[in-house]
């Protein structure tokens, strides 16, 4: 058992610094609104306002730090906090869903980390959020919380059963195929549009004049340049975010860590793991690359906390071996049931209808305004049909032992591996046409924080669907 402790005193400065930056504009507004005569003009006012704010927030943060105490012992962490309203909280080992540590650049400079302990509660934030403890302290808290009272600190460090790292070349490959550049491209375009407003009219006129003289190719070149720039930037951001990626398998948990500037470390206890997802984005599929994710019960409400990354980039061929080493509880199916032939036209129909409606609108509108070339929009049918065809071809389900594997495509090709004991309920459904065609939609619901989640496969043959149901049924 440890005594009651405070976090590292540097927390006061870190918090004050962070607060000041966000309150800078507030101080400036106060400085402007004060009469000039009080502290000798705007500059004087600003200095005084800043000093007062600095003093107040230091005092406030000091009090908060001073009254935040924690204590840990075998399988338990106690927290006592609050200046006026005291709050005490005890967290027991069996309620802990996940423990994360991360450290930003400033924290790294002082050898500090943030330790977050999350429980199965509904709250968005971590139940315990120690924002400035030394690395050793964080390790010691983790060790105490995980130990069951038998293991002592003198016992040798636990060795992982298996581990995987992301190689240098692979991370660039992952970065270039991540597909994030689309988001960044829109950001770059947005910034461009924002800046555009502040360019004086004179320059704008000049630019338009000169633009009208340069050929179309240059315009396309500029767009392509912006595109490439955002691609490169997003790749670099990705690399910084996921460099040093490693995943280690221990007896009862996975430990995943990544990042350079902001080092993150996540622990996923195996019994919290609900499903494994193998995802192939459209950019990665041609190269035979995929991403592996895990769905975990418990954790924050943010999307990135809900699904944890198991591996940012792995070759399709190596998934089998990866699972054998890191998660032998799961396996890729040897064979699976594909969709019946009569399901194809339903898939084609579903993917084409919205596009056809869009084309119809365009053709009507163009006809209305008397614009030519509306038939070009018909070309949109080609990607729509091929997407539908690909969705049909990739849909499959397999039940082997106690694991069901669902494969389907929306845009990315997704393969979901779930254990029978993690499926909360199974639903078969069929609309009028599916009933006539003896087809069923299979839906699997499982727990993924903060609420449930489900995956489904449409238009499976009724008998195959029934056999999945029988596999799930306990009678």
């Amino acid at each position, binding site marked *: 058992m440890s005594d009651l402790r405070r976090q590292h005193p540097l927390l006061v400065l870190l918090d004050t610094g962070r607060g000041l930056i966000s309150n800078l504009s507030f101080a400036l507004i106060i400085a402007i609104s004060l009469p000039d005569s009080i502290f000798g003009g705007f500059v004087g006012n600003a200095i005084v306002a800043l000093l007062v704010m600095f003093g107040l927030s230091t005092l406030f943060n000091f009090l908060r730090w001073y009254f935040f105490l924690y204590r840990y012992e075998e399988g338990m962490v106690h927290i006592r906090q609050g200046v006026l309203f005291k709050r005490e909280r005890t967290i027991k080992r069996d309620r802990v869903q996940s423990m994360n540590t991360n450290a930003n650049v400033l924290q790294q400079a002082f050898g500090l980390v943030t330790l977050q302990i999350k429980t199965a509660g509904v709250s968005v934030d971590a139940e315990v959020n120690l924002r400035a403890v030394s690395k050793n302290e964080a390790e010691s808290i983790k060790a105490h919380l995980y130990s069951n009272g038998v293991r002592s600190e003198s016992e040798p460090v636990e060795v992982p059963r298996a581990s995987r790292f992301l190689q240098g070349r692979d991370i660039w490959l992952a970065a270039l195929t991540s597909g994030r550049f689309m988001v960044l491209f829109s950001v770059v375009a947005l910034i461009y549009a924002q800046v555009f407003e502040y360019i004086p009219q004179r320059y704008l006129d000049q630019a338009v004049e000169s633009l009208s003289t340069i050929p179309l190719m240059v315009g396309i070149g500029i767009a392509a340049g912006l595109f490439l720039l955002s691609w490169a930037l997003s790749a670099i951001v990705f690399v910084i975010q996921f460099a040093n990626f490693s995943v280690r398998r221990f007896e009862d948990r996975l430990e995943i860590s990544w990042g350079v500037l902001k080092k993150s470390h996540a622990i996923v206890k195996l019994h919290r793991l609900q499903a494994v997802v193998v995802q192939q984005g459209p950019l990665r599929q041609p190269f035979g690359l995929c991403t592996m994710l895990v769905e975990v*019960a418990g954790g924050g409400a943010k999307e990135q906390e809900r699904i944890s990354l198991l591996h940012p980039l792995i070759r399709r061929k190596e998934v089998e071996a990866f699972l054998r080493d890191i998660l032998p509880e799961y396996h890729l199916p040897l064979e699976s049931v594909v969709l019946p032939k009569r399901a194809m036209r339903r898939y084609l129909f579903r993917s084409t209808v919205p596009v056809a409606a869009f084309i119809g609108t365009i053709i009507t509108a163009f006809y209305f305004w008397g614009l030519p070339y509306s038939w070009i929009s018909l070309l949109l049918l080609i990607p729509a049909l091929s997407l539908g065809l690909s969705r049909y071809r990739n849909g499959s389900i397999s039940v082997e032992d106690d694991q069901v594997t669902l494969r389907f495509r929306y845009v990315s090709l997704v393969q979901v591996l779930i254990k029978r004991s993690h499926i909360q*309920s199974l639903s*078969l*459904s*069929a609309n009028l046409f599916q*009933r006539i065609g003896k087809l069923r939609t299979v839906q699997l*619901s499982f*727990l993924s924080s903060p609420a449930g989640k489900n995956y489904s496969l449409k238009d499976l043959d009724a008998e195959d669907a*029934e056999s999945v149901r029988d596999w799930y049924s306990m009678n």
Partner: protein
Amino acid sequence: MLEDIREKLRMDNEPKESIDPRARKVWMIGGALGSIIVMAIALGFYAFVTIVYGAPDWVGWIAIALALVYVPWGVYFHPWLRMRFWRYELRENELEIQHGIFVIKRHLIPMVRVQYVDTEHGPLMRYFGLTTLSISTAATKFAIPALPKQRAEELRGEIATLARVSEEDV
């Protein structure tokens, strides 16, 4: 021939038990109340569009026609069809529920996954002595509407005993 079509529209192996026939009455009354509201909205729309904005009469008539189509659906067909497909079956280890009209859904809920069982009833349901039984797992929630009060309480008890605490997951 008609039997053939009926056979096709059904899903095989329906769960055994239907819900209480009094449920249809509750739904019909609910549908009638809904129809009155829909009718009122349509009349309001008619008055608003034609009198306030001076739009042609037929715009308002369309709204009224739509409302008139809704009335038999809400009062008769919907409760009837809903009743027709509602089925449930409690077995030793699992509960199966089927419902839907156009899309028929059938849910299989193992007892070990059940987290809570609740019963609840509104004023209309109480009048007819009916209760809704809702069953929650960690990820999903289902309800059997309109069971006789007695039966619902029995079922709640049965499910609660059958739903053992499972250690293998959350």
